[in-house]
């Protein structure tokens, strides 16, 4: 009998309360999505490349899981509270009919457990479906589609989800059951709980409101001006000012509404005063939870923006210059490249040379560069560049133009044409910093030159071409060169080798290598001569895989195949895959997790808002009945209620939006950097899409509440007014 009753209760509750069940499902999906991260396609792929980093990331998952548990607890708590408030009369009657408190408690707990089981049975397949589609989508987005999707049912994740879900449910229900079972039957039977109205104390409220705004302004100012990196003090200041400001603002908002209402109500009629008072009372009674919801929404927006920003920053990877850079002697490299099976795959193999000015012979006079830079508008970065250029010339690296042209050719770009008195400017920094690129482009256009002074007093002057080159010269980001000149081969040899040595043969060697853009370079040096400091020895051998193979097999599988062969050959190398792996890792780690948290916060904040409003509405039933008895039409009451809902959401959303504008602004100004070349239109477009999605989600929630409330109003009938 007891069990039968529990079952019928569950059935009834489920029918009455779609929102409640939707909330429970959200909780399950949230847990599973997080816990199954490890078995997602992208993660499985990354494990093969960046095992250590993934391991570290996976250590982070439990932490985020605990954070999720904490927030989902509130979600479940409010969902259950809403349900219990709806059922209080029923509990009162049970007690009056002689049910023991202990038994009522037992009944509620049994219901919770059965409910949880049911939710798990529905929720897990939903979660699986969702994670599978996320897995497929991300795999597609990052170009892993070819690797082959694997159905990723993760037993550990299911176990974690179920345990976490039950824990959260039982805790929420335990607290609520104890509260409700302790109440007197008479209090329970009265269908509505008492609303304890709070009085408006004028001065305190206004003070709180003013301080709230002041603190928020301080937080904004600190965030935008002081927050440069994720530093301790400014971050702490922003957090403290922002949180305090938001809480105080909401605390004082009730008084503010009082003043606004007093000023305006004289000329109004209808339900204007009532609507105003309802909102005011809501704010006065729930200012803390409004503040928390608003902050949660802020966190949601910030997390999602951060995720998108990071994702953008990393997915805008470099154009593929080459697939592998081998570090080894010519013999080793030649042996590998000339193997039949490898030859079939390799489109081109060419050496890359990097050199410095040979110490003690020539010196660089940077006057021509400094003067050109000085013509650009003054800023910190420009001054830094000038300072660097004015130091000794150790920083300066040199490329022979033929070697660099090989790289350009293999990428399908136009070669650099230099005459004897010309040079080109290369800086890898220009790829990462748009400001750096801008300064150098301006400087080169105004006409820059470099001068090399020989010990005998003679000098060689080269004019710089107006373009800045910043292609990656190896497969991964193994080296970063800040200031490099691309020189004619002869000049390169002259500057990088001791004056005493014979130059001609060197120059020939390099020139020959330069001509080989297809197949192997004509290698004449023996491995004994290999020396890291020797500018005439290639720094690395770049290999590019045939486009046909890439097209047929896909870039990643092709690279992975070659990767295996290189490992077998025992060569040390740098691969494009490493770059992709690192990019992917950052994309997944930062974007995925922060977007996950963002969406979770968004769901929780909104659900809490909705449920709080609906509980509130339930308590107001009697008021609406009185209004009807006083001659208010249902339509007018509905309108008033819709205005209340809109304003209620607007109060939370408005503050959250203003806060997040500043939060995102300071975030992108400080620790999130968008990659060079990200157009303002793109950023604006993404921001707009995010905002539109956010607004749509909120409108959906507002619609749900309004529909539910309207239904409730329509169901009211004056005759049910309790006597």
């Amino acid at each position, binding site marked *: 009998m007891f069990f039968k009753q529990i079952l019928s209760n569950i059935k009834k509750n489920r029918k009455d309360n779609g929102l409640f069940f939707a909330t429970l499902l959200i909780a399950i999906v949230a847990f599973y999505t997080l816990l199954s991260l490890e078995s997602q396609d992208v993660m499985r792929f990354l494990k093969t490349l960046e095992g250590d980093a993934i391991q570290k990331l996976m250590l982070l998952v439990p932490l985020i899981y605990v954070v999720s548990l904490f927030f989902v607890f509130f979600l479940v708590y409010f969902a259950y509270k809403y349900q219990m408030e709806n059922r209080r009369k029923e509990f009162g009657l049970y007690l009056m009919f002689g049910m023991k408190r202990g038994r009522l408690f037992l009944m509620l707990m049994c219901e919770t457990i059965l409910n949880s089981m049911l939710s798990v049975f529905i929720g897990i397949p939903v979660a699986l479906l969702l994670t599978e589609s996320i897995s497929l989508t991300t795999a597609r987005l990052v170009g892993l589609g070819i690797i082959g999707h694997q159905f990723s049912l993760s037993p550990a994740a299911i176990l974690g989800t179920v345990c976490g879900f039950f824990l959260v449910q039982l805790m929420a229900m335990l607290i609520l059951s104890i509260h409700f079972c302790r109440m007197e039957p008479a209090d329970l039977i009265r269908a509505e709980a008492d609303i304890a109205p709070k009085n408006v104390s004028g001065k305190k409220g206004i003070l709180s409101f003013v301080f709230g705004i002041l603190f928020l302004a301080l937080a904004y100012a600190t965030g935008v001006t002081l927050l440069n990196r994720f530093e301790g003090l400014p971050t702490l200041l922003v957090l403290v000012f922002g949180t305090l400001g938001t809480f105080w603002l909401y605390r004082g908002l009730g008084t503010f509404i009082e003043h606004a209402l007093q000023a305006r109500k004289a000329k109004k009629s209808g339900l204007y*005063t*009532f609507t105003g008072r309802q909102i005011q009372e809501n704010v006065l009674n729930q200012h803390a939870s409004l503040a928390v919801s608003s902050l949660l929404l802020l966190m949601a927006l910030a997390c999602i923006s951060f995720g998108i920003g990071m994702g953008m920053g990393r997915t805008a990877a470099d154009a593929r210059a080459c697939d592998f850079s081998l570090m080894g002697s010519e013999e080793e490299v030649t042996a590998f490249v000339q193997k039949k099976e490898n030859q079939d795959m390799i489109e081109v193999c060419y050496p890359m040379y990097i050199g410095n000015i040979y110490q003690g012979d020539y010196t660089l006079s940077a006057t021509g560069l400094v003067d050109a830079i000085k013509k650009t508008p003054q800023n910190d970065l420009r001054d830094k560049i000038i300072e660097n250029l004015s130091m000794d010339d150790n920083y300066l690296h040199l490329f022979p133009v033929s070697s660099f042209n090989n790289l350009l050719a293999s990428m399908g770009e136009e070669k650099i044409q230099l005459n004897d008195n010309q040079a080109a400017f290369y800086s890898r920094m220009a790829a990462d910093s748009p400001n750096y690129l801008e300064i150098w482009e301006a400087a080169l256009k105004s006409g820059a030159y470099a001068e090399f002074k020989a010990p005998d007093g003679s000098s060689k002057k080269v004019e710089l071409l107006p373009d800045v080159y910043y292609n990656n010269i190896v497969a991964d980001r193994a080296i970063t060169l800040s200031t490099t000149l691309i020189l004619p081969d002869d000049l390169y040899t002259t500057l990088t080798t001791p004056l005493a040595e014979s130059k001609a043969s060197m120059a020939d060697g390099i020139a020959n290598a330069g001509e080989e853009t297809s197949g192997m370079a004509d290698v004449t040096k023996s491995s004994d001569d290999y020396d890291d400091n020797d500018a005439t020895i290639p720094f690395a051998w770049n290999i590019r895989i045939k486009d046909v193979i890439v097209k047929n097999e896909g870039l990643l599988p092709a690279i992975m195949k070659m990767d295996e062969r290189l490992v077998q050959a025992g060569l040390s190398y740098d691969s494009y895959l490493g770059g992709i792996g690192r990019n992917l890792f950052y994309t997944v780690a930062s974007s995925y997790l922060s977007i996950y948290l963002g969406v979770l916060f968004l769901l929780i904040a909104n659900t809490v808002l909705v449920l709080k409003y609906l509980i509130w509405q339930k308590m107001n039933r009697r008021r609406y009945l009185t209004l009807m008895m006083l*001659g208010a039409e249902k339509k007018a009451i509905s309108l008033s209620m819709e205005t209340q809902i809109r304003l209620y959401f607007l109060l939370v959303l408005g503050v959250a939006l203003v806060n997040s504008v500043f939060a995102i602004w300071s975030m992108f100004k400080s620790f999130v950097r968008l990659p060079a070349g990200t157009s303002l239109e793109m950023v604006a477009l993404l921001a707009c899409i995010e905002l539109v999605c956010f607004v749509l989600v909120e409108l959906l929630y507002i619609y749900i509440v309004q529909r539910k409330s309207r239904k409730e109003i329509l169901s009211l009938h004056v005759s049910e007014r309790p006597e």
Partner: protein
Amino acid sequence: MNTNRILQVQNISKTYGKGSSSTTALSGVSFDVLEGEFLGIMGASGSGKTTLLNCIATMQKPTSGKILLNGEDISAFKGKSLANYRGNKIGYLYQSFELLENLTASENIILPLSLHGVRNQDAEQALIPLAKHLDITDVLNKFPTQMSGGQKQRVAAARAFISNPDIVLADEPTGALDSKNAKILLDKLSVLNRQEKKTIVMVTHDANAASYCSRILFIQDGTIFHELRKSIKNETPAMFYERIMTVIAQLGGGSANVL
């Protein structure tokens, strides 16, 4: 005495449920209320007196019969005209006050006017004399939680009278008040009735409260069973009270004893 019939209740019946399980709350009740009358309706619990009042207030629809207010059939009211009837033509005083807790006294009082499009500042003009008469000027800016039960009920009374309705319906208005506050309220109501010619219909089972009325209908098992009329010229409230008590005693003994 004015013989203008403001409310005509014609043969109304109210049955709850259907078929064999039906219960009759009212069966063929008819009476008129004259303008300026203070009519009491007395009866034991379950006698049907609240159902009767609810039918007049349009909170319930009678199963059969008609109720006319100033000659208009109130069961024909729907939508706007129904809202207008509730807000303008009748005032209602509840046992449990039914003030909105989050509105100040003055906001509560002028709500019926507000609901019918009167601007708040104009409505507040109408409020001042009424507030003076009911002795609630001090609490006008207070919220219900800051008032005593007596003050709350007088605020509720002000709300019932503010729109100058044709008739005020009061359902056990002293039910939640102590005797002192009950007396104050009844005194104020009867002054409003005598001086301002306000028509009041009050349901009560308290003989003391009923003794303020000018006429009392006794209702039992859904029918009007007796009527008492106060002789205004030569009857004191105490004498009227005794007559009421006699009827109540006879009610307990059954209809055979009553003349």
